[in-house]
């Protein structure tokens, strides 16, 4: 039955937005949704089928091989099978045509974007932090995600039920990641909440781009060549909570700038030119933040300045 229908969909490529998303939205998303319905409720089986991120991270597709993909296997089971999805008493099974579409879409590589990869367009020259802040927080631009991944980035959701909040890292590609690749993060600017640039070749100039990520809360710049100049570009990041500067060229000069990040909770400054005196001053501005300079190797004295009175010594 399925196989007859395949011929009906063979030939042209399947478009995720036009052909697959509507099937999932009408037949699957009642249960498998990333949207919180009631307080704290998670999608069924931890699987959200209403976002590209949810589908990709849900472990149900093996791009290029429908017959090895649970998404296809489960919908194509016989009606009597209790593993069938959607369940027979809940709208299942899908029509033969729908099943065939899903099969073809997965077999063709399960692409979410508009296909050819040319979908990212240009980054607006006048994009700034205010404009990014004003952008609604919607599902991330699939072409942008794919584009950035193509440049070696690892992109993940902050959590299962937070498909709009993205974490961008350069794992195992850090040594060949420069400002040029980093700039491309702006394609998904409104969605980025965490960025790990540690050990990349990012420069002060590259932090201009990072400075536009209005919703950024976590930024790791450890062991990069950035200096005080670069930090100046981050002044608009009002949500910043975690900043890791360990092993960079920054000095006490950045501390007045950092004092303006009122939400900052953790700052790491080991192996920089930042001094303990400097941090003491910053403490006055940010009394609740954890400011880590060094944990003394020899005495194992804990020099974290977050609570100076509580310093423990032997």
């Amino acid at each position: 039955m399925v196989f007859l229908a395949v011929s009906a969909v063979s030939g042209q490529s399947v478009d995720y937005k036009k052909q697959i998303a509507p099937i999932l939205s009408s037949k699957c998303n009642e249960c498998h949704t990333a949207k919180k319905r009631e307080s704290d409720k998670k999608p069924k089986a931890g699987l959200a089928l209403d976002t590209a991120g949810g589908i990709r991270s849900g472990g149900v597709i093996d791009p290029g091989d429908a017959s090895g993909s649970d998404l296809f296997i489960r919908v194509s089971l016989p009606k009597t099978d209790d593993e069938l999805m959607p369940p027979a008493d809940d709208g299942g099974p899908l029509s033969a045509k729908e099943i065939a579409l899903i099969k073809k879409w997965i077999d063709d590589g399960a692409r979410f974007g508009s296909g050819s990869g040319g979908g990212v367009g240009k980054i607006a020259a006048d994009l700034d932090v205010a404009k990014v802040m004003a952008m609604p927080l919607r599902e991330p631009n699939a072409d942008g995600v794919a584009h950035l991944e193509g440049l070696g980035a690892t992109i993940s959701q902050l959590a299962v039920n937070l498909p709009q909040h993205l974490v961008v890292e350069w794992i195992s590609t850090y040594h060949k990641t420069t400002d040029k690749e980093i700039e491309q993060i702006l394609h998904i600017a409104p969605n980025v909440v965490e960025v790990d640039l540690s050990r990349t070749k990012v420069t002060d100039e590259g932090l201009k781009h990072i400075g536009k990520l209005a919703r950024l809360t976590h930024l790791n710049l450890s062991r990069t060549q950035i200096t005080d100049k670069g930090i100046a570009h981050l002044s608009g990041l009002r949500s910043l909570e975690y900043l890791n500067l360990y092993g960079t060229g920054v000095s006490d000069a950045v501390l007045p700038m950092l004092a303006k990040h009122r939400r900052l909770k953790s700052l790491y400054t080991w192996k920089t030119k930042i001094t303990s005196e400097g941090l003491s001053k910053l403490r006055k501005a940010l009394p609740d933040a954890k400011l880590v300079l060094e944990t003394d190797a020899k005495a194992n004295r804990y020099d974290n300045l977050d609570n100076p009175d509580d310093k423990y010594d032997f």
Partner: protein
Amino acid sequence: MSENSLFSKGDEVSRRQFMIGAAHSYLGVSVLPMLGATVATSDTFGAAPPMRPRAAKSVIFLNMSGGMSHLDTFDPKPENKDVQGPTPVIDTSAEGVQISGFLPKTAAMMRHITLFRGMRSNQGAHEQGQYLLHRSYAPRGTIVHPALGAWVMRLSGRRNTTIPGFVAIGGSSENATGGFMGARYGGVPLGNANSGLKDSKRAHSVSKEEFDRRLSLADKMNLSFHGRFKQKQVKTYHGLYDEAINLMTSEDLKAFDIKHEDNNVRDLYGQNGFGQGCLLARRLVEHQVRFVEVNLGGWDTHNDNFVSVEARCQILDQALAGLISDLERRGLLDSTLVALGTEFGRTPDINENTGRDHFPRAFSSLMAGGGVKGGFVYGETDRKAHTVTEGIVTPGMFNATIGHALGLPTERVVTSPSGRPFTIGDEAKPVKEVFA
């Protein structure tokens, strides 16, 4: 579909097994796309997202094998000399929390640590106790349960897909088993911190040029075979060669080489097997390895308990405090859970050889970083450290708590190839009270 039912009519077990994509292949190879361990999909897309935001990303599990005396480490009873013996007791950086005087550096780090003083196991022999500690289940003759690291791989996949996601340094290689989940979820055992990733460098007997020529010859040889057998298993097998080359040239391979560390950093952890293992663990975590186990043996102190434990503690203290402080100054402690476990504690009664014997009824373990509270004590034993009076934690609960720290779906049932259901903590619930 009728053909399918002809073959295994009513065979629900195998149907399920098929659905789950069971660890064992039915026919021929099921070639694994990546090294070590991972979930099929996460190979393509990186790790599955955690169940909650800002969950820990990695675990360093410190295995105290042999049965670490709780009285002489993390649950001293200074007011009761009968059971305490000569072990001194000291204050820590956390108010009101005292630990053994053998662990002064750890005491300084206590503000990052949650102690579990209500551990309880039902296995009083080493092998069985270690099995339960690592796998949440007691050993059975009909199944091999996966180790905790394999559960982590199975439920969340690798973060760095060029290197293994689960590494075990020292100790029994059984602690790295994928069990019924199969080798793909198992860890890579390293004999010690210096051994590096086996065979990841070109042999001295082969020049770079020769090496490349061999590969190109093999490629050409494969053409006709691949033409004749257009099969996924053949294609994927060949793909492993590309992946091996990627790994051999990967920057991340450096993570396995502790010689890149300065001497003062190596000193910080202690210049011994366990200390250097902890240092390697930190390097691996920096390269997004998910789960690293480091083993410290020698806790089986039936004789001369106090001398032996003090010696063990010197090693543990230096390494543990070094690890926590090093992670912290690098900004990695929030995203790295350090967990320390043992198969059982030791008898409060001191035996005739001034030793302590096996005692699964009450013992201690700890966690640090990874979002757990600092300076916090969960659970309590009576005045003789003999019975847990509050906050019992079983190895299954401990493992579920580690899973929770990573944001894993701890209730997720994974079905063995034989159709039996298992969870990361043997259905135990995580101890959520320990999270900040």
